[in-house]
């Protein structure tokens, strides 16, 4: 009987292995949440572990004390965005579906400072030029010569600013890619799990066989 059952084991095992390798790209059932700050907003993206967007799911943003700051729903692409008036020590972004799936992402204060930066730079936008002027008026001796020199300098400043903005945009795009919810299950983990089950089965068989021999 024992020999018989070990022979009958072989066929299903082959079937299982076939399934593992046939199915590796199609996965499901965990919600991955990605969140990052860009353009003064927090962008949230949620997907299932097979990469499919989590549509129409409830989004809840809470502070460390558990107070709900923002509530909303993901779009058809699984995205959501919001801004914050004040920045707490960290925020939790939780995405929940009606059928019991849930994913969460914690953003620490450091990652949220971009929100503050955007708000501040808007507020600082007007004083900035005047901050450039004082050294020119301070160097007062030959103002006309200086004014002539300043014009190209301003153009250079503008060019530099544009360069930096382009670089910043690139960085933000890379950050978006890094923060994209990843999904997926690695084949090693699948194999590890199958191996563990085979091992457990072996141990169980050993224990049971010992017990039945003793009795």
């Amino acid at each position: 009987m024992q020999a018989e059952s070990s022979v009958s084991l072989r066929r299903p095992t082959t079937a299982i292995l076939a399934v593992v390798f046939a199915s590796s790209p199609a996965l499901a059932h965990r919600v991955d949440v990605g969140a990052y700050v860009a353009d003064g907003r927090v962008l949230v993206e949620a997907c299932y572990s097979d990469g499919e967007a989590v549509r129409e799911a409830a989004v809840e943003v809470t502070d460390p004390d558990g107070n709900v700051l923002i509530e909303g729903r993901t779009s058809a692409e699984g995205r959501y965005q919001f801004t914050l008036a004040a920045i707490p020590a960290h925020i939790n972004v939780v995405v929940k579906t009606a059928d019991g799936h849930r994913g969460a992402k914690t953003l620490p204060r450091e990652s949220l400072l971009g929100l503050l930066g955007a708000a501040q730079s808007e507020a600082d936008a007007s004083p900035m030029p005047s901050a450039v002027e004082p050294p020119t008026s301070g160097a007062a001796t030959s103002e006309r010569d200086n004014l002539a020199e300043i014009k190209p300098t301003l153009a250079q400043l503008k060019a530099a600013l544009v360069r930096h903005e382009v670089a910043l945009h690139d960085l933000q795009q890379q950050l978006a890619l890094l923060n994209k919810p990843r999904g997926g299950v690695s084949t090693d983990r699948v194999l590890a799990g199958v191996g563990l089950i085979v091992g457990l089965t072996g141990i169980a068989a050993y224990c049971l066989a010992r017990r039945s021999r003793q009795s």
Partner: protein
Amino acid sequence: MHIAEGILSPPVLAGGALVALAGLAQGLRTVKPQTVPRVGVISAALFIAALIHVPIGVASAHLTLTGLAGLLLGWAAFPAIFVALLLQAILFQFGGLTTLGVNTIATALPALVVFVLFRRSLHSRGAWGFVGPFLGGALGVALAGVTVAAALFLSDDTAFTEAAVAVLLAHVPIMVIEGVLCAFCVGFLRTVKPELLPAPKQRRELASAS
């Protein structure tokens, strides 16, 4: 079935864990040395089945093999399902360790019901031999969906019907696919390896603690 962590309330989690432990103890008592390999194979199949995503329907759903596990294992479906879910929680972050009890029940109870209702069809050579396992496979998924909805309802203010509709709608395509899969698996085993099916004599051993 995988309910994620942080969704269910503590009483539901504790209750689920207790019932799952009882089922597990009962399931382990029915396992005989001859049936250990079968339990292992089904457990491995369950472990991997959750990775097979069916991209039809409104939500993300995957195979569960609940009905098949019930038909082939009876009470022993409890340990098989428990091990599969435990490893899925650890290795894939599907479900979670705290919800392990509830998720085990949500999969193993339907398996048991399917076993009780349809085990007679396992060795039937007529049309019932196909229809029985088909219904078993489909019912396994449906019952699992209802159990998940009940767990969500018990621990939250979400309306039962809303949760049940959300879960069941997501699983309608899976029900059909699992029904067909279950019917073909049972048919295949009946023709090729009838020893893998619970034999009429073994049936009693699997069904009760005896």
